[in-house]
């Protein structure tokens, strides 16, 4: 089972990872975007962390929704609505729950991903965060089918995101700012796919050995 505290620990660990990788994410965005992805994410997750302590009941759905609405209200840019919608929709799928089975976590994750796809309208291969999130989902589903532990399943999920992230390098972007570069966007790793990998790597780290 994944507890309420696990979820909060995950969000906190990701927030710390974002801060640690702020310059790196911004650097990636300066190659094919507008040099703000790390700054945007860090602004949002600094605000998120400030909200976590004030949460009243141990409701995973409510907590994730707070993360989402805080991101929408503080990040801006493309990543604000996208990550915001991800957390809001993920939270909506588990309203009132104090703990999640791996299956429930997977379903919630898929609901969040659905929100990203709906508002961002990106297809796999467009060189966006979707290219990390979809392989992550697929890896998680496969791990569950294999009967993997929480720890193993989430690690395989993070590995899936990592491969997806690396696979964005040769792509020519069709969505987001990188698309303005046309062919010149090839050869660079997508910043949003990179932060999405960090998101799932943080989960794998928090839940290691479980």
């Amino acid at each position, binding site marked *: 089972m994944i507890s309420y505290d696990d979820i909060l620990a995950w969000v906190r660990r990701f927030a710390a990872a974002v801060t640690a990788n702020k310059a790196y994410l*911004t650097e990636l965005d*300066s*190659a*094919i*975007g*507008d*040099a*703000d992805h790390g*700054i*945007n994410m860090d*602004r949002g997750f600094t605000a998120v962390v400030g909200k976590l302590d004030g949460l009243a009941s141990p409701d995973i759905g409510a907590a994730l929704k707070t993360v989402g609405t805080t991101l*929408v*209200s*503080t*990040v*801006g*840019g*493309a*990543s*604000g*609505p*996208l990550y915001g919608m991800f957390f809001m929709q993920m939270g909506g799928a588990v309203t009132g729950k104090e703990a999640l089975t791996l299956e429930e976590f997977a379903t919630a994750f898929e609901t969040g991903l659905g929100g990203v796809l709906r*508002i*961002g309208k990106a297809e796999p291969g467009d060189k966006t965060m979707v290219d990390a999130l979809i392989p992550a989902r697929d890896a998680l589903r496969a791990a569950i089918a294999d009967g993997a532990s929480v720890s193993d399943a989430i690690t395989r999920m993070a590995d899936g995101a990592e491969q997806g992230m690396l696979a964005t390098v040769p792509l020519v972007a*069709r*969505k*987001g*700012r990188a*698309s*303005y*570069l*046309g062919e*010149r966007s090839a050869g660079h790793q997508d910043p949003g796919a990179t932060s999405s990998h960090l998101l799932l790597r943080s989960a794998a780290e928090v839940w290691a050995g479980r």
Partner: protein
Amino acid sequence: MKKLINAPESVVDDELAGVAAAHADLVRVIEPNVVVRADAPKKGKVGVISGGGSGHEPMHGGFVGMGMLDAACPGAVFTSPVPDQMLAATKAVDGGAGVLHIVKNYTGDIMNFELAAEMARAEGIEVTSVVIADDVAVKDSLYTAGRRGVGGTVLAEKIVGAAAEAGADLATVTALCQKVQDNVRSMGMALTSCTVPAAGKPTFELGDDEMEIGIGIHGEPGRTRMKLASAAEITAMLATPILDDLPFKAGDKVLAFVNGMGGTPLIELYVIFNELKKILDARGITIARNLIGNYITSLEMAGCSITLLRLDDELTKHWDAPVHTPGLRWGR
């Protein structure tokens, strides 16, 4: 990084405090970072708002006032504002006749404005949106994010603002904005990169003898990098794709807008305008109106963009109408 700022985190707040102090007769600044016309809401008047990342000054905050925008939402530097801002702006300017959102075509702007529009509609305010996507440097395609909104936005805000000021209803104002979008094309270039304050170093590096053609307004690198060329050559590189795209034809009357990216002095913009005039003369196109200066910028980037808007009597009339904002003023 060399900037006249106190700290990267406070640039936008400090700037807005300066705007509020300097132009209290025209605007007020409300939470969460919205520049609102001092006399808003005006009962029965359609509200016109826009917004986008900061770093493009005077756009958009400098265009709030009589005959132009009713409110502007400045995000962090080069980052779309958050829906809370557009919602607050929409509510602050709604005089009962509905509100038009003028949105530049960037994924972030589109999504954040759309969220705000949904929230505003949920509160009972009629909201329409027009997306400005005038940058011919970007290939237009159904499968991509599409063209960026650049210089045409300034012209749309002026023209649409005049119509709203004159009492046009929401449908008319919205259709007029779409008409501007349908008749405007732009393209830009950079001699230098710019530095996002929080990033602390230039977004891209350009050699001493290089320039970027086809840049946007966010310090994004452009489509091609090439050796520095003369003003005449650069003007042709920007004007030709614009002219061929719409296309503009002999006999057309246009508004020619030569825009500096923030770090380019006026003397150079007039040199470019002079070259543009020659090119349009040769094609039998008349420059009926012009705008020359730094109006939609990329921080301190050196470079310029050219925007051409095909004019008819309606667009000309609204362009000529009085405007009184910090950044654009005539007729009163």
